């Protein structure tokens, strides 16, 4: 990613480079769709249009739209506005990375324990709250979720070894 700096003097990836990246990504997505449709067959079979018939043209449309978006992004010229400052992106990543870990932990630990860890980490690390409040919210929320979903509405949620130990 190029490091463009705007008139404000603050650093961060330029909006243009992110636009180019997004257009390239949608084009790559289109290529996958087209490849998949060809595999499924995009012609006419005994029952009329085959399974890949419509997706094939959808893929072509995405490709065409991506090409225009890409061209527009290239033509927009350098020195445009920033996508976001690095500091802002760090804020965004401070949500994305714990969430990614959380999502990975859910199948292993169950959703309740993972949620306690996520909320606790957030409040302690980003919010710097006292332990009493952190514990109250991070334990209270999953318990509340358990009562509403599993007991009241009878919707089962993923559980892990801890719940097994407690025979829940």
């Amino acid at each position, binding site marked *: 990613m190029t490091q463009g700096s705007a008139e404000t003097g603050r650093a961060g990836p330029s*909006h243009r480079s*992110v*636009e180019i990246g*997004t257009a390239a990504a*949608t084009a790559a*997505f289109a290529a*996958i*769709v087209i490849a*998949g*449709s060809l595999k*499924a067959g995009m012609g006419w079979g005994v*029952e*009329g*249009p*085959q*399974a*890949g018939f*419509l*997706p094939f043209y*959808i*893929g072509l*449309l*995405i490709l*065409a*739209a*991506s090409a225009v*978006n890409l061209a*527009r992004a290239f033509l927009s010229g350098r020195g445009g506005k920033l*996508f*976001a400052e690095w500091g*802002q992106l760090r*804020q*965004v990543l*401070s*949500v*994305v990375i714990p*969430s*990614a870990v959380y*999502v990975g932990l*859910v*199948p292993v630990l169950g*959703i309740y324990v993972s*949620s306690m860890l*996520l*909320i606790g980490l*957030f*409040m302690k690390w*980003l*919010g710097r*709250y006292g332990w009493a409040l952190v514990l109250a*919210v991070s334990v209270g*929320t*999953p318990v509340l*979720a358990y009562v509403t*979903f599993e007991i009241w*509405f*009878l*919707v*089962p949620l*993923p559980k892990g070894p801890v719940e097994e130990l407690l025979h829940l």
Partner: protein
Amino acid sequence: MEEIANLFGGFALVLQPYNVMLMVIGIVLGVIIGVLPGLGGANGVAILLPLTFSMPPSSAIIMLSCIYWGALFGGAITSILFNIPGEPWSVATTFDGHPMAQKGKAGEALTAAFTSSFVGALFAVVMITLVAPLVAKFALQFGPAEKFSVYFLAFCSFIGMSKEPPTKTLASMMIGFALAAVGIDSVTGQLRLTFGIEELLSGFDFLVAVIGLFGIGEILLTMEEGLSFKGKSAAINPRVVFQTWAELARYWGLSLRSCVIGCWMGITPAGATPASFMSYGIAKRISKRGDKFGTGEIEGVVAPETAAHAAGTSALLPMLALGVPGSPTAAVLLGGLLIWGLQPGPLLFVEQKEFVWGLIASMYLGNVIGLLIVLTMVPVFAAILRVPFSIIAPIILVICAIGAYSVHNNTFDVVMMLVFGVVGYVFKKCNYPLAPLVLAIVLGDKAEESFRQSLLASQGSLGIFFSNWLVGSIMGAGVIALFWSGLARVRDVLRLPAAKKA
């Protein structure tokens, strides 16, 4: 009148104590959802949808639609008190609503906003009551080609009327269609686009996409902005309410115009957000005090709020009568119908009378109850926003994850939710609209089915979409809608020399 009898039947259903309780719960939850950043009408309904699987469909739709009304009301609270639009359609409300609050007239601004919302919604519901059965009756004659033409019109209007670049709208929409196609092809039963990945066999669920794109994406945006909520406090007392109502009565012309704008924009899938801006813009141009707009004019609150609610409500008309939702939230509700085993579309009015009229009756009652709740409980809802974001954000994340999981009891969906969240963040920053993507995922299968059935009937000739006056004119309208912004530009170019001469 058969419709009136049906409507009274609907009221009888809605007034059952269990259903009234669900309405109150729905509206309170809806307002909270509308107030919190990261939770909005569409993904709020999506998260709570799995909770309704065990309810009777008519009770379920009553609760979910009340969440929608609540969210529409809730957006106004944050706009006026905190200058933060909780929902995109309340951006225009901040222009005059927040200055009013700064002048110490928060109570008046909130009363005006809630009352206008109520008026807009009521106007739209009356319109739905009168028009929807007629449209449905008419649409009963539709064959596959006509059905496809209605989808075509809806999607073309998105491309032509959105303020984002048309190629971005197109890309976003087609990505939605492609995601809808993944999994088992409903016509031939063949697998496609799965690439041997087991998790993709059942395809992408739009609920997971909605929760990710709107919920997680919104949290990431809020994090980036590093918002600290500093708001005005407000309490509404009866004296202020009645004074404001007396003042509002003078603006009946403005209200009526905003209602019409809202209904029009709601039925054509332009949605509540453009409706609120358009109504504000026109009010500013026409009003005698137009030059004072932006400094805290009550008219500047009435116009966008009325239009946004009229649009939000009338977006349900095409969903009910044609099976084509006019907004992302309506799309989620439509997905709900499918899950409860109801077939959306004109037949709903024939086969599921109780359900349809129960829903329509709940729109009347839900808005009355909603108005009472928000007028009396504003300080409570405003207090929610004072809870710091570092506590709210992880809780919302957890709620979104629970919602995504419970759609299919599948942890892979939670992973997809996060992926959709990051995509939603980048798309939103790059001006790719998310609503068409969601609508395409919801409607993709049905649109493809009607398209292929038509082609099958015509042996592959596209001529079937222009084979009679009905399908031809709907398709024609679609093409006009597609090039609408282009046509508007041509008109401006033609008008410019004329203006210079004068």
